[in-house]
């Protein structure tokens, strides 16, 4: 190596180190880099797991003997509700996002995800919401009507106190953060791959992230829509689930399980994704049947949306529906089987090195396959009628989740620990931890199958003696504590000081995240290599040394900016050098303010809620104004390897456009869930709208809808004017569009108001109101965006070539126009046809 080279290398490393430096002291909390935020996120989710686990141990102690009175029924109901809620919403889903934030960029040889501040915002939302929901139990105020929150019990404000509101608002807040993280991860996988890594060459983990991100986008919004209806009933007595006023408690079950069943696969697939990285490494060969496993994962994702009613086999569904959902539920076993056999075949076709991650993977398989087989049993409706809501189902779901999610995750912890910390975990402690957990788990949950078939229902805080449940429950309790001991060993292994230093790429893996050498270097990857193989470290000669020498893209940071490569969605051709924003407290401030608004609403502190919400929106505006769509000092930059790339991209070439598109797909799904509710009521009522009831004022509604559509039309004109570099015209059309949108929203709200629709009297006016309000709020947000663009134009940040904001806002308005048009069609036109 020549002296010049050494000098250049030292200079580049110094630049990168300075640009990506992790701040110290209290500024550490301003961090927005994926390596740090991912670690916070993972750690927090794990703490919530331990908390929910302790709740489970208290329950098992209570159930150890019959007629026990260690805890009261009221406390027990809080314990089991919070256990399920926290495991699902504060551990299983967030840990996927946390781990993905932590490892995805390195796997893609990216320096960071495209929206680092969004990751940080999501983390702070998660932390605030999680502490709020979990901490409620210390005030005897935790939700106590089950993680499924069935009305009319959970809508009854006299029987369920503030806990139900904490559940609804706290979790809605976290769900929004989950969707934000999903958007971030999807865009990351689609746009931040290294050059040459075409979509069929991605590490399998990335495929799973893409699939699960997509599932979150379609699964969470129905729950958010359901939460809105639910909270409107609790706060304002709108009778969505009240049978006496035309509502139906079963609608909640549909919305909840349309979310709830995909949720199971949202939890399961990311863990399988970890196995898909671990198995090839320890088989020391590429995965066998890459196409098979990708298709199977996609198939699982699709099918998981057609299974929800199997949670409702006992509500008295028609036989035809039951047959369909039984068949679909059985069918999902097939793609799952394919994924398992891809792993088995890969092991057979390789030379296996058996290690702790493999031990956990094998244990995971043993448990999960058992849970899958009992799943096939309960998928058959006649058997489910017996097993449903009994301890059999408790056993089944823990076999699938512990086997399908927890054990693979721990395999991942042992596997990725050296990548994250540079230290090895102990093989000896790993074996102890595994066998304690594996044995404890089976001792706890295997007997529950029998307990359930002997007739013990779920969610009882105690049980009478001599029904054949006593010994089985005692054994289960013993098993639970054994498993807990295994968790303690694991925690000790992770936290103990003095761990052995890990060599670089200790498992001889083939994917790019293992390029990471010293984790104290903050830059992620030294230079971004072109990729020609699915397992570059195995197949591309001398790759690691070349990366370290900075021979590839983005070897330094001469302009002192955080940069990462943006490439094409399918073929990963280099498109842009993306400048990602650095550390900032703004995401944290925004999360605190928005969270404060949700929390204040829980306590009915309306003024505080409105104030906090308005400040939160203002904080987000400041954050966007100061941190996004910055006009670079020069149009292009040297990306290394003799390639010059633009620094600015807008429209579908930009990451922001994709994020807006994906977000709005999720938003549209939530809106469609509300429309679904409308037509659901239509199917259960002989006449809907009910004959004789007032209908919203058609003239006002049509005018309002037309005004909204006209606003959208002006936005299209504004975009054209901007392209032609006519700023005066841009400003005029934007202002006109904002006026029209405001008028449209006002007219839409006026329409049911004028007709005197009282939402508390019947579900019809309530549904009309909720759809109208949804649309009006979207128009209002649209106006905010129009104002933002107007300000941008006046400030000179919006020009003919630098038009990210306008392009994204127009994209928003496509969806807003669709929403307004649908509202018009459903509320004003459909009644004429029905």
């Amino acid at each position: 190596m020549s002296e010049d080279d050494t000098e250049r290398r030292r200079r580049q490393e110094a630049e990168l180190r300075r640009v990506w430096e992790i701040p110290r002291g209290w500024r550490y909390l301003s961090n927005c880099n994926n390596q740090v935020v991912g670690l916070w996120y993972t750690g927090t989710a794990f703490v919530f797991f331990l908390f929910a686990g302790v709740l489970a141990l208290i329950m098992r102690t209570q159930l150890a003997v019959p007629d026990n009175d260690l805890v009261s029924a009221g406390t027990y109901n809080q314990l089991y509700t919070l256990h399920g809620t926290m495991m699902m919403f504060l551990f299983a889903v967030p840990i996927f996002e946390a781990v993905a934030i932590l490892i995805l960029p390195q796997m893609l040889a990216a320096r960071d995800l495209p929206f680092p501040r969004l990751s940080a915002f999501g983390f702070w939302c998660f932390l605030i919401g999680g502490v709020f929901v979990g901490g409620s139990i210390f005030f005897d105020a935790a939700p106590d009507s089950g993680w499924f929150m069935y009305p009319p019990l959970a809508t009854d404000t006299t029987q369920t106190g503030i806990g139900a509101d904490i559940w609804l608002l706290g979790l809605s807040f976290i769900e929004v953060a989950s969707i934000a993280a999903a958007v971030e991860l999807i865009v990351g996988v689609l746009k931040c791959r290294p050059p040459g890594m075409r979509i069929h060459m991605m590490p399998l983990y990335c495929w799973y992230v893409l699939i699960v991100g997509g599932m979150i986008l379609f699964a969470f919004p129905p729950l958010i829509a359901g939460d809105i209806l639910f909270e409107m009933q609790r706060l304002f007595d709108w009778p969505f689930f009240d049978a006496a006023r035309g509502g139906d408690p079963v609608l909640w079950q549909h919305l909840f399980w349309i979310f709830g069943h995909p949720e199971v696969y949202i939890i399961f697939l990311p863990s399988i994704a970890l196995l898909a990285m671990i198995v090839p490494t320890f088989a020391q060969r590429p995965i066998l049947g890459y196409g098979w496993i990708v298709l199977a994962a996609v198939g699982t994702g699709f099918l998981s949306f057609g299974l929800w009613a199997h949670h409702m086999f006992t509500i008295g569904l028609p036989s035809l529906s039951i047959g369909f959902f039984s068949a679909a539920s059985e069918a999902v076993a097939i793609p799952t089987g394919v994924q398992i056999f891809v792993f088995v075949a890969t092991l057979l076709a390789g030379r296996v090195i058996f290690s702790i991650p493999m031990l956990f993977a094998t244990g995971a398989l043993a448990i999960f396959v058992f849970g899958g087989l009992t799943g096939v049993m309960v998928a058959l409706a006649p058997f489910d009628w017996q097993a449903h809501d009994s301890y059999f189902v408790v056993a089944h779901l823990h076999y699938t989740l512990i086997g399908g999610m927890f054990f693979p995750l721990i395999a991942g912890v042992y596997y990725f620990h050296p990548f994250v910390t540079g230290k090895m975990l102990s093989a000896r402690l790993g074996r102890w931890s595994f066998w304690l957990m594996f044995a404890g788990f089976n001792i706890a949950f295997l007997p529950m199958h029998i307990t359930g078939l002997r007739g013990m229902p779920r969610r009882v805080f105690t049980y009478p003696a001599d029904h054949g449940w006593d010994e089985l429950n005692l054994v289960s309790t013993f098993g639970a504590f054994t498993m807990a001991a295994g968790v303690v060993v694991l925690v000790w292994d992770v936290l103990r000081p003095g761990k052995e230093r890990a060599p670089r790429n200790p498992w001889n893996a083939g994917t790019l995240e293992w390029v990471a050498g010293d984790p104290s270097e903050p830059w992620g990857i030294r230079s971004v290599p072109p990729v020609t193989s699915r397992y570059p470290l195995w197949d591309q000669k001398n790759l690691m040394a070349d990366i370290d020498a900075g021979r590839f893209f983005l070897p330094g940071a001469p302009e002192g900016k955080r940069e990462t490569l943006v490439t094409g969605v399918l073929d990963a051709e280099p498109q842009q050098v993306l400048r990602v924003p650095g550390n900032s407290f703004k995401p944290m401030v925004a999360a605190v303010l928005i969270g404060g608004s949700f929390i204040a609403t829980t306590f009915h502190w309306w003024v505080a809620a409105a104030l906090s919400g308005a400040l939160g929106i203002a904080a987000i505006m400041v954050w966007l104004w100061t941190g996004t769509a910055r006009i670079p000092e020069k149009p292009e930059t040297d990306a290394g390897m003799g390639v010059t790339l633009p620094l600015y991209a807008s429209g579908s070439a930009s990451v922001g456009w994709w994020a807006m598109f994906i977000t709005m797909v999720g938003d549209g799904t939530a809106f469609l869930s509300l429309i679904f509710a409308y037509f659901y009521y239509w199917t259960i009522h002989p006449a809907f709208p009910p004959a004789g009831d007032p209908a919203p004022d058609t003239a006002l509604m049509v005018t309002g809808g037309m005004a909204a559509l006209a606003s959208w039309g002006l936005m299209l004109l504004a975009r054209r004017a901007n392209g032609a570099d006519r700023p005066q015209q841009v400003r005029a059309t934007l202002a006109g569009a904002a006026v029209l949108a405001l008028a449209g929203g006002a007219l839409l709200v006026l329409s049911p108001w004028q007709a005197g629709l009282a939402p508390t009297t019947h579900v019809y006016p309530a549904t009309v109101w909720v759809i109208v309000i949804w649309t009006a709020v979207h128009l209002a947000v649209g106006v905010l965006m129009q104002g933002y663009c107007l300000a941008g134009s006046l400030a000179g940040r919006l020009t003919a070539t630098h038009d990210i904001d306008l392009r994204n806002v127009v994209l928003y308005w496509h969806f807003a126009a669709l929403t307004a048009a649908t509202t018009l069609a459903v509320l004003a036109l459909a009644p004429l046809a029905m």
Partner: protein
Amino acid sequence: MRGSRPGFRAFPRTAGLAGAGMMLGACSGTQSALDPAGREAGEVATLFWVMLVGAAVIWLAVIGTAVFASRWQGRPVSERAGLRLVLWGGAIVPTLVLAALLAYGLRLMPALRAGEPALTVEVTGEQYWWRVSYRGPDGAAIESGNELRLPAGHAAEILLTSADVIHSFWIPSLAGKLDMIPGRTNRLVLHPERIGTYRGVCAEFCGRSHTFMAFTVIVMEPAAFEAWLARQAAPAATAADEGAFLANGCGGCHSVRGTPATGTIGPDLTHLADRAMLGAGLFANTPENLRRFVAEAEEVKPGSRMPSFGMLPPQDLDAITAYLGSLR
């Protein structure tokens, strides 16, 4: 335990299966889906044993293969052979097995739900008890609560609904569960076969005292059932003094037919002394428990609408207990 007898009816068809024997003695009980006393439960129990054996075979095969694969140090198999394994093990065999299982399982469905009923009983779930209403031979309703009697060998139609929140009606010994949902009526047809006493429970979480929402199921000889139903239709026959019961307002919520007590908020008590249990399966029906329930209803059954009457003078409590205990 009354009503149970060793062994299970459905078992002989699959007798001798590995692993099943050890659970044998353990499965009998008044509330066990594995000790069926009715046609529906019997068919499901058979289905379960068949699936259990199938599941055990599949589990051993898959895990055996996986462990073998992860320990195999010989010559790696070819890619072609590996993909063939994925195709057969992951796709073709599961498809065939699941299709067969689905055909078998769903075939049970119409049989489980249909049938010409000899008897109709309306059961309403309430927090936290069961309103039971038989339709007598003359079509008139015969009110009862927290106990369901059925004639053996006859189909019985149970019409299920709820007065407040969602409950679920489950008698594991007889059949699977069906939910009780406000605003809807669900129809469950039972074919009880074996005479005996069983226990039913609420299977859907319904609030604070969900745990204490059980009921007694008594399957009787048809002739004995007819006689019992005729007796139920009659007003209470008692020699005890109803004064304290009426004076303390018990009749505001409870009915005792043939007396001024005509309340409908709580269970009908006309033939309370005939029932095996008190407080929806909470206590055995003894005078001490009866007195305790009247005095401490809110404590022993939190969230129920029955107030505690512990503040009454002891002689009133004694009189109420004696009166209720005599209602046959």
